């Protein structure tokens, strides 16, 4: 295990953890329920650690991508259902990220939002064409680390640390009305979905194959998923806590992604604002690349095409065409002028419905001793996996009714 590579891997995971949905829901959750939803972020982070580690292990041991294995395991029909469902949810997520980039550039430059969305897409496509996989992942992930300004801003505004720490304990605030309880439940489901997006497992495991992981990389896989995702989640929690401290008491329920940047502007002025906006831009750009590539990986792996960014674009032509078309489709959705906040809501809603379909086959594969040998799930991974599977299934069933009953969390 190369310590420099490991450190860079962890830092990339930290900077690449937060995406537009987490930004939006962390700020809204903090302003609406104070620190009471921090535990959901922590709980969901353990979930993505479990499934992230599992998907990386399957990729390292089987040297085969999750979607190819899924097709063999589930059969063509059920595999196709999983593929289509995950394509739709990840495409909407990709559109939300592209729209988010357009908006953040709009805040930074004042240039028209749709023009910025087009420019963002072209830059992302160019970077994917030119850069090798490792550098695509690292550039966006490492620049996303500028989001650390949110953690620094939280320290600077002196939050009530005891109350904040108490937020890590699972709780439902006392004295909520039925309407508020439904809203709390909706936020909990949305946060679970935003942290455990299905594309993350596809991207992460395919990345392991792009980087030629083998059993010797299993420790790197474990450390990256636990430390990297854990620290990344702390950034999202910092946004939530800053919102609880600054926005909640001011009656602000952040209605736009740009509002979160005020958390850094209030203690640090213009420098804080710019760092926050740039950090958000790169984090969201990284997520846009991940969602688009996750979809292209899924299609190529399912149909057995040549795939991978370790190959030249023309060496895997159908894979290359897939990510180009997917980026253009995401841009097309944004160009309909649909509200970015609505896209975020739909992305979270579709993703939670798809989550059980994503994680069940992965878990069955990782449990299978005939397939994984001595690297099959042990009692901890197996136990946590089934607990999280039960919870995401319950959340998937509850998501749409909660969305309708709370008008998308508005109450």
């Amino acid at each position, binding site marked *: 295990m190369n310590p420099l590579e490991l450190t860079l891997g962890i830092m990339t995971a930290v900077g690449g953890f937060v995406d537009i949905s987490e930004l939006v829901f962390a700020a809204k959750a903090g302003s609406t329920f104070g620190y009471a939803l921090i535990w959901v972020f922590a709980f969901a982070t353990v979930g993505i650690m479990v499934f992230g580690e599992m998907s990386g292990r399957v990729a390292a041991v089987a040297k085969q991508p999750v979607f190819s294995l899924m097709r063999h395991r589930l059969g063509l029909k059920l595999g196709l259902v999983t593929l289509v469902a995950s394509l739709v949810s990840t495409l909407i997520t990709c559109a939300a990220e592209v729209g988010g980039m357009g908006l953040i550039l709009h805040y930074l430059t*004042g240039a028209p939002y749709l023009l910025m969305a087009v420019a963002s897409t072209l830059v992302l496509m160019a970077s994917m064409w030119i850069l090798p996989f490792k550098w695509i992942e690292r550039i966006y992930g490492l620049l996303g680390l500028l989001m650390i300004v949110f953690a620094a801003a939280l320290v600077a505004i002196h939050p009530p640390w005891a109350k904040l720490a108490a937020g890590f304990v699972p709780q439902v605030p006392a004295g909520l009305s039925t309407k508020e309880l439904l809203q709390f439940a909706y936020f909990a489901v949305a946060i679970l979905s935003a942290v455990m997006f299905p594309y993350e497992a596809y991207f992460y495991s395919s990345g392991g194959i792009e980087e030629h992981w083998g059993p010797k990389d299993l420790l790197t896989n474990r450390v990256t998923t636990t430390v990297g995702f854990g620290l990344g989640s702390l950034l999202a929690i910092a946004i939530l806590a800053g919102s609880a401290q600054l926005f909640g008491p*001011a009656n602000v*329920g952040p209605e*736009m992604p740009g509002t979160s940047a005020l958390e850094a*502007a209030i203690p640090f*002025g*213009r420098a804080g604002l710019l760092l926050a906006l740039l950090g958000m831009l790169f984090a969201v750009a990284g997520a846009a690349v991940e969602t688009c590539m996750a979809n292209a990986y899924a299609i190529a792996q399912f149909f057995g095409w040549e795939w991978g960014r370790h190959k030249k674009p023309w060496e895997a032509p159908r894979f290359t065409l897939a990510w180009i078309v997917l980026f253009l489709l995401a841009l097309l959705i944004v160009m309909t002028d649909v509200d970015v906040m609505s896209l975020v809501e739909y992305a979270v809603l579709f993703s939670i419905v798809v989550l059980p379909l994503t994680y069940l086959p992965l878990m069955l594969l990782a449990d299978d001793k005939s397939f994984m040998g001595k690297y099959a799930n042990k009692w901890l991974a197996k136990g946590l996996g089934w607990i999280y599977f039960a919870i995401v299934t319950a959340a998937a069933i509850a998501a749409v*009714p909660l969305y309708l*009953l709370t*008008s998308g969390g508005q109450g």
Partner: protein
Amino acid sequence: MTRQLWLLLLLVAGCAKGPEADLQYIGEARSLGAEWALVNEQAAGGRLTSHYTATMRQNIREQLQTTRTSLTRPDSRYGAEIQALLEQPDNAAPAELRAHADRLKTIEDGLESA
């Protein structure tokens, strides 16, 4: 059974009218007014860039307009309050914007407890 439950949910979500149905828009407008006050307060202290300030104000105004047109009772007290917010200049005093947001909050709380 499942189908009936879905129909019931859609009815509950889609068929409400009047202040009850407008509650979410009142909440949105209250939040937008408070956001606008916060932006203007920070901008006055020189803590924001001009692009960010202008963009936030423009987006807030557009969303307020959408909120107002979504009301089932635009001629209500809350409709008038949202209209009053829309008539404020971009660089309105934070205290003035906050006063409108607070009045919307009072209306919102009253409707919620009714």
